[in-house]
């Protein structure tokens, strides 16, 4: 068998085993959560009988091991079960609760990735090309600054900037400035598009409207993740530039751009894609703060709400989706690393 196919199958198998172990961890962790959904739902005044009846109805009276296998059995068949918020005659499946939220999260993640990954690669390549120049320093400083601020701060600053478009000229600060300066600042502020500061969307929102409303959360996330990817791209390329074959390329009269793109980058993919995968996973599992700031209905907020209301099936499903995302993206990174290594792809 081709060694690449074998390695990929091996990694895939390992990924599945990891996912299986994760289901055990998720289930045990949630089983250990304090509080009781039935009591929380029925309130302080509920009699023990009503609580027991309700527990029986949603199935949490059975032993944990039995519940675990029932849950895993369902998932294998593609069924995430019913939310505890279901009523008799009104069943709400976990899938139907999660689906629109997951779509929104994926939408934001893909949109951000489409901006951030090319931006990070481009900046990283240019920084490597013009290393130690003022351009390199500016890019490094700016990206380091944006990654150093907490993301809610970046989010609020961006929102404030948008609001300032309309309010700056009326502020005391603006009036204390010379008129020409205040006017030019106002002019610059008005160059910024009037992005909505609330990303409230529904399933009826048209596609481009969705893009427009998701702009600020997307920019915030881009500012947060770009530094890591850009710095790794720069470092991986510069690391390659010390190789004898780079000296050779220089002596062959190749231009600096061709050296970086044709000779260094193809050998630098492995560390770069690992970091990209890590950051893309963050876009799906780590965005809850940004969702809250911009009131964007994503899966992070859903999970937080579900934890608060002890809606265990939803929490479990979210956790599992997060875990699967990590595993899948890292698997993809591994496969790309293998596929860009000719020693593995074309054995002797």
């Amino acid at each position, binding site marked *: 068998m081709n060694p690449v196919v074998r390695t990929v199958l091996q990694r895939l198998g390992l990924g599945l085993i990891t996912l299986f172990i994760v289901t055990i961890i998720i289930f045990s962790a949630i089983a250990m959560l304090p509080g009781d959904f039935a009591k929380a739902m029925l309130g302080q005044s509920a009699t023990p009988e009503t609580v027991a009846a309700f527990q029986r109805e949603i199935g949490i009276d059975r032993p944990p091991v039995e519940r675990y296998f029932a849950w895993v059995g369902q998932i294998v068949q593609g069924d995430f079960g019913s939310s505890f918020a279901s009523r008799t005659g009104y069943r709400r499946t976990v899938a139907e609760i999660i689906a629109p939220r997951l779509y929104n999260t994926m939408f934001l993640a893909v949109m951000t990735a489409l901006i951030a990954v090319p931006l990070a690669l481009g900046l990283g390549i240019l920084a490597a090309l013009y290393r130690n120049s003022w351009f390199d320093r500016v890019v490094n400083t700016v990206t380091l600054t944006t990654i150093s601020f907490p993301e809610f701060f970046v989010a609020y600053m961006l929102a404030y900037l948008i609001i300032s478009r309309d309010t700056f000229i009326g502020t005391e600060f603006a009036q204390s400035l010379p008129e020409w300066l205040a006017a030019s600042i106002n002019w610059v502020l008005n160059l910024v598009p009037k992005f909505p500061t609330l990303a409230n969307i529904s399933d009826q929102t048209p596609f481009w409207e969705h893009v427009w409303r998701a702009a600020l959360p997307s920019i915030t996330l881009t500012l947060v993740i770009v530094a890591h990817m850009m710095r790794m791209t720069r470092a991986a390329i510069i690391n390659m530039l010390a190789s004898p074959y780079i000296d*050779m390329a220089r002596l062959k009269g190749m231009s600096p751009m061709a050296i970086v793109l044709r000779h260094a980058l193809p050998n630098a993919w492995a560390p770069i894609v690992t970091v990209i995968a890590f950051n893309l996973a963050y876009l799906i599992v780590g965005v809850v703060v940004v969702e809250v700031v911009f009131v964007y209905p994503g899966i992070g907020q859903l999970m937080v709400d579900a934890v608060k209301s002890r809606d265990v099936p939803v929490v479990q499903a979210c956790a599992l989706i997060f875990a699967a995302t990590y595993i899948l993206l890292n698997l993809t990174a591994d496969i790309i690393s293998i596929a*860009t290594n000719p020693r593995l792809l074309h054995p002797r």
Partner: protein
Amino acid sequence: MKNKNSGQREKGTKLLSIRNLHVEGFSDERWHPIVRGVDLSLKRGEVLGLIGESGAGKSTIGLAAMGYAKPGCRITQGSIQFDGIDLLAMTETARRRLRGSRIAYVAQSAAASFNPAHRLLDQTVETVVAHGIASREAANRDAIELYRRLHLPDPDTIGFRYPHQVSGGQLQRAMTAMAMACRPDLIIFDEPTTALDVTTQVEVLASIRKIVEEFNTAAIYVTHDLAVVAQMADRIMVLRHGRTVEEAETRQMLAAPAEDYTRTLWAVRKLAKPEVPAEDYLLTIDNITAAYGGTVKVLQDVSIKVPRGRTVAVVGESGSGKSTLARVITGLLPPMSGSISFAGHYLPSTLKERSKDVLRRIQMIYQMPDNALNPRQTVEEVIARPLEFYLGLKGAARDRRVNQLLHMIEMDESFLDRLPVELSGGQKQRICIARAIAANPELIICDEVTSALDQIVQEEILKLLMRLQQEFGVSYIFITHDIATVQAIADEIVVMHRGKVVEQGLKTEVLTPPHAPYTELLLSSVPEMDPDWLTNLLERRQRKRVGAAN
């Protein structure tokens, strides 16, 4: 015939002229001179050999001829005129246009200098396409033609392989094709065969010489091997410490070197130790077969005897199993079958089964002292470690012994606190020798211990090893691919080829004809100082091939 393909490129007009070249390198926080005022001139179609020890500045001069200084180096003074153009006065972009197209470069390690991510053909034609000299298709066709002329196997398809799929000798020829792709006026060959086996070296040398003659290309051939440069160059320039020692036509230089330094370079090759027949045997290897995991046997049925107090040289090209044999003897690789007896006792095959005392009695010295020394340990720590570990020496006794050992290797107490980075290559190898001797061993396995060193340093190390043998009666297994080293140090020779022992016996027996066929090939491939050696050898082999065909 020589000028058939060269059009107006008549041999004889001036191509390159370097005047008063000064190059500096930055290290230890300051600039050091590397090249100090070298003049050089080269005519079209002429091959100039640059020769000298490492640090003589020969590679730096080669690169300067392309208007290039390595990162961390700078050209501070002088002029470099290439075909009437001042290379130092032009912009970097303009110089880049010359590189690859009119001045090309062939590097020492082809394996490291080919980009692992691209196919050979793509790399061969890269300059042609980038400089806009020919279309991609025409360049591909031409590259295949060059592969054919350089006698690469399967010239039509070899270009579609990746560098790791091709052998070192083939890569070196592919790199020559890459340099030739734009039909440059000048090629810089920077030690192109140093990393190759002698048997492979002959083929690469022949290919390079043939193609340089066919296209009437001028070349600067940088090497530290006198015999090689004698085959390749029309004229030789001897360099030392960044200065020209002397310069002359090849034949004249070989016949009558004017300077003392040049004569010392020549003399190195003549070191030869009279052999002493064995009295009794220290190590007996019986029918060893070994493999690394898989089914490919690296050693097959190898039997060798090592006499006490003598030196057995194990020779053969890379892949012949020499180093694997060392791993089996030291216990790093347990063999699949066969047995070893050491000083009359059975030698257990794994390290675990061997007692500390048995471990002490067999020591090893490696090719690369850089890798064999811990960069964070001082000379004192390195030498004292076996004293503490094997012999349990402590305090004043240990210090005394360390000093004693340092004097034994012709160094002194001032080195005690130095780290490996503060030592020269030869000094580092001496420390490795002291470390091996510290254990009072009966057998030392020397794995290519002089291959990474300059010839003059090589000679010193070999003399040191021989003196230590006389003093302590230690036996050496000397693994090498260099016949001159064998001449210098061996009592007995074992010739290995593809995991098997081809021939073994006393040095004179093995080195005097008739030889086993592989020994013949190996010995005849060792370059000699005669400038006609390569021509004669190729003719002889050609005649033999024709004779065999009839």
